[in-house]
């Protein structure tokens, strides 16, 4: 789907966030970008989204480059329009593409249903819990049926119970939607649970230290599987080696 080839990013002022980073994203993949704060994970995600441009290297899309709506983005905060209802927040990407409200509503309601928010269509963000706001944000990212879903530490601010629930739900959504997910996290447990491929990044300037493939089942019960604990330990050791 996308080849990130020797990409670097130096910000004005001279801060080098990324250096010589290469990565391949395949269809229906689930990749976790894992590393400590400031290692360029979010920068890489913004480059993939086209929200920023690399200083060096190239981003090569297979086939046609992404059109608006082909990429969904979920930020660390839900970043909803506080004056709009859940329904209108999810409608936003379609509205910006000129889709009429009547045409969009079945898709909006399907997206809200997919994240378990049926019945909350007319609720405004302040009336929703942090976890529910994040679900609206995920529904908004899914409503355009994106080829690529980019998630920048979306569950970092949530409590552990909500986080576990949303992680399990995200796996269901990913299986249903069939899109490629790139998930930024600094939690080894989260990366091990969610991803098919875990990409370890080193601190600034960010570089990819190692890629690890998961043999775990992408399902809620995996958390209780001894193989999950073993994979977490394997990632931890690799991370220690990368940071040494």
């Amino acid at each position: 789907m996308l080849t990130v080839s020797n990409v670097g990013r130096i910000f004005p002022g001279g801060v080098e966030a990324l250096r010589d980073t290469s990565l391949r994203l395949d269809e229906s993949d689930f990749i976790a970008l894992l590393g400590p704060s400031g290692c360029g994970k979010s920068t890489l995600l913004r480059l993939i989204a086209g929200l920023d441009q690399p200083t060096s290297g190239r981003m090569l899309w297979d086939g046609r480059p992404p059109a608006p709506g082909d990429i969904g983005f979920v930020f660390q905060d839900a970043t909803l329009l506080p004056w709009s209802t859940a329904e209108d927040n999810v409608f936003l990407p379609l509205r910006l593409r000129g889709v009429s409200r009547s045409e969009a509503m079945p898709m909006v309601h399907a997206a809200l249903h997919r994240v378990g928010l049926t019945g909350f269509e007319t609720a405004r963000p302040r009336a929703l819990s942090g976890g529910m706001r994040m679900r609206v944000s995920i529904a908004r990212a899914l409503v355009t049926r994106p080829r690529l879903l980019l998630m920048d530490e979306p569950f970092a601010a949530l409590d552990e119970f909500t986080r576990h629930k949303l992680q399990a739900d995200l796996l269901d959504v990913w299986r249903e939607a069939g899109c490629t997910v790139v998930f930024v996290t600094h939690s080894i447990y989260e990366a091990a649970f969610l991803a098919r491929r875990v990409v370890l990044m080193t601190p600034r300037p960010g570089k990819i230290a190692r890629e690890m493939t998961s043999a775990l089942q992408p399902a809620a019960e995996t958390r209780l599987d001894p193989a999950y604990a073993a994979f977490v330990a394997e990632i931890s050791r690799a991370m220690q080696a990368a940071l040494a």
Partner: protein
Amino acid sequence: MRGAPALFGLLALALWEAAVRLLGVPVYVLPGPIAIVQAFAADPVGLLESLTSTLFVTFAALAMAAVLGGAMAVAMSASRLAQAAIQPWAVALQVTPLPAIAPLIIIWVGQPFLALVVCATIVAFFPLFASTASGLASAPPELNDLFHLYGARRWQTMRLLRLPAALPYFLTGLRISGGLALVGAVVAELVAGSGGFASGLAYRILEASFRLEIPRMFAALVLLALAGILLNYGLGAIGQAILRRRGGV
């Protein structure tokens, strides 16, 4: 708790009346509250007509400031060229004392009502302009990124993100500018004197001071203060009602 301001006001008035009477202060120096009420009761229609006239100028100026301030803030937010062109002039307008330019405006504009409105607009303009401009820039960068990601056109970002984000700021600016429009209208009337509208409350204050009708002067001042308080609370209540309708944000 809710009655505390009224109780405090009544106590202050009672002390004021007692002090004036006990110390034998002449009415042309400081009239007591009762003398002021009597002065108002002697010509309520005249004073209220003058208040209406001043408020007319105030609301016209506030409307003009809202339209101009809002439009210029939007233009500035939409274009860097407009920002470079507008901002220095807006600041210059803010720091220019109204009494210094009011005589010129009155001469240039000619029509007294319009001249007063222009003067009051100049005073009321800046808070509306500055707060709306801040509001238009207040949307979180992530939401701007999101609009960019979904290929939003500039007018869509303005209509669906920046303008709604600016609404609370605009309403705060409107509340501040409401009081300033009243001040501007009064200052303009004072500067214009008999060359102005010759019917506003400030003109009545001038007229009363020339005739040493100090209680009447105070009655006019009290009306102005009450109008200012009502204007402030009224605009605040309208703002809250508008924000409540869209979920309190």
